[in-house]
């Protein structure tokens, strides 16, 4: 029984890691296409023409081959162990966060296979799911900081310093913004939060401020524009990854996009009802509703990802002091107010 359990978990890890890495490859294509439309261009459209595939659908393969086959330069002046460790941390920290993210129905509504319920989650039943995601996410800082320091280059170093300050600052509103939702759903387990939203109402309607704060801080946590100060090309050449080439640079890229996927999953699970739609609810078991729920979840995640990419071409980058003011003087006080107000309502108005 133990063997089957472990085999099942390994299978799920394989599928989730495989799909997410493949998704990242196509997200890069999507990003380039959206960038092209935003700038009134066509974007990549040649790859795959030979086999009659539209929209440059084979572009990710070409991009991946380029990353792998380019010359891997390690400058002589870098701190070699840390220089090599940094991209590895980026990709590991981004990948292991998926362990507690439900990508379909989990718990009582899970379909059964071989007599046991098949949970759409690598590690089901983790009480502190959301805290685990934050813990793993907070390790991602090391990748940027170490890359900046080990490169022994002033642009990279400045990028690393900016980044560590930015990531630490925005972790505070990120953590505070979800607490309202946690108080209302009375659980840190992501599945219980989805079930609560399925029974009642989506989180975005009951915690609009929390949603907004979470979305903004997750832009900052994933280093996306308008918060891409660690790499800002016009000021710092390439920021923390100036000295990286070939697949080591590719690994930072991969880590960043994996973070975007995780963040989008969290936004959807916490505030957009997870797999919940008016005709889908926790009572439906079986494989068809299960896959339907997984696809609904995936669709919502895709919409959030596209939104994140769209924002990149809409808003200009913040100045550094504006960035810090936004986090410490606006978002953290707002998040605390939201938390206190929610706590009062939950305690006294709902009489839990």
């Amino acid at each position, binding site marked *: 029984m133990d063997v089957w359990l472990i085999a099942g978990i390994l299978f799920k890890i394989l599928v989730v890691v495989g799909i997410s890495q493949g998704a990242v490859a196509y997200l890069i294509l999507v990003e380039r296409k959206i960038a092209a439309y935003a700038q009134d261009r066509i974007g990549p459209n040649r790859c795959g023409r030979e086999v009659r595939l539209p929209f440059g659908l084979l572009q990710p393969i070409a991009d991946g081959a380029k990353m792998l086959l380019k010359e891997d330069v390690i400058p002589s002046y870098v701190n070699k162990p*840390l220089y090599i460790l940094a991209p590895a941390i980026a990709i590991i920290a981004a990948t292991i966060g998926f362990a507690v993210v439900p990508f379909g129905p989990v718990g009582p509504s899970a379909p059964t296979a071989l007599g046991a319920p098949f949970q759409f989650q690598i590690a089901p039943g*983790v*009480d*502190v799911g959301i*805290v*685990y995601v*934050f*813990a*793993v996410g*907070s*390790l991602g*800082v*090391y990748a940027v*900081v*170490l890359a900046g*320091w080990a490169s022994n280059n002033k642009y990279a*170093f400045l990028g*690393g*310093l900016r980044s*560590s*300050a930015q*990531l*630490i600052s925005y*972790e505070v509103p990120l*953590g505070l913004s979800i607490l309202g939702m946690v108080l209302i759903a009375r*659980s*840190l387990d992501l599945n219980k939060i989805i079930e609560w939203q399925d029974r009642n109402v989506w989180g975005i309607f009951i915690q609009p401020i929390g949603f907004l704060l979470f979305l903004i801080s997750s832009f900052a946590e994933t280093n996306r524009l308008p918060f891409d100060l660690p790499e800002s090309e016009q000021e710092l050449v390439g920021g923390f990854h100036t000295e990286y080439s070939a697949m080591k640079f590719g690994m930072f890229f991969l880590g960043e996009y994996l973070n975007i996927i995780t963040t989008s999953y969290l936004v959807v699970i916490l505030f957009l009802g997870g797999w919940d739609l008016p005709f889908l609810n926790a009572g439906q078991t079986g494989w068809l509703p299960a896959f339907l729920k997984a696809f609904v979840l995936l669709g919502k995640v895709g919409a959030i990802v596209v939104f994140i990419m769209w924002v990149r071409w809409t808003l200009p980058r913040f100045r550094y002091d504006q960035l810090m003011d936004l986090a410490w003087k606006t978002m953290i006080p707002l998040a605390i107010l939201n938390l206190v107000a929610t706590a009062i309502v939950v305690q006294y108005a709902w009489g839990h």
Partner: protein
Amino acid sequence: MTVSLADPMFRAIVGVVLGALGTFLLLPHRLGAAPTWARSLSGVLLSVLSIAFLASLWQVPASAFNAIFFFAFAAAAITASVLMITSRDPVHSALWFAAVVLATSGLFLLAGASFLAAGTVIVYAGAIIVTFLFVIMLAQQQGRAVYDRAARAPLLTAVTCFLILGGLVYSLLSLKVEHAEAGHGLVRPIDRVAIEHPTSPNRQVLNRSVSPTARLNEPARVSPTETVPEVAGLGASLFTDHLISVEVAGFLLFVALVACLAIATPKPPKRPAVNITPTEVPI
């Protein structure tokens, strides 16, 4: 009282004493002088002996998986902490510290304390050590200075640390002897029901080490078969049994915060008082 090597308490005492001696010999000199070979070698030998004595007290956890993970995390934590102390580069030290924190939270996780594990990673690895790195990187120290290589009071340090270790091992061992017949080992993966049970070793350690400081109202007792969500249980215990401790800790942190602000606020630059006579000062 007979003394033999079969007595775990005797082995524990020998292990702790040898460890203290070995560590004292390994610690750098008070003035930063280079240690001799004989001193270092005997220090290493004594420390290895001490670890062997203490290791003979371990019991292998019931499940093989737990055993593998436990020994992997424990070995990682000890190795990383030795490397953290011995590495010359402060940045490497900070990173080994992060490794220690990660390995320790792995051990917390095995003991069923998942919130503690995640919280430790967030607070230590995710915030405090990053701040250390931030400062170290800005200061660009290389750790070559004499005051970095010297130990201020090696003897006192070794004695104090191993007194604490001795106390810890003693309390755990006396517990193990009482419950040997019940099949509870020193190291055992635990589920929450087992922790809540009033005669479980964990509950006993808890009762001995952390006595309640305050109690607002009688906390709702859970029956041994019922599981409460871990975080809710932790919060309930903190804010009923240990309210005063929590408030005192919070107050201390708040005072420290105010002090930080007082120190960090930039003061107006002082003008050189050389050429200023009272008549020249603008009003």
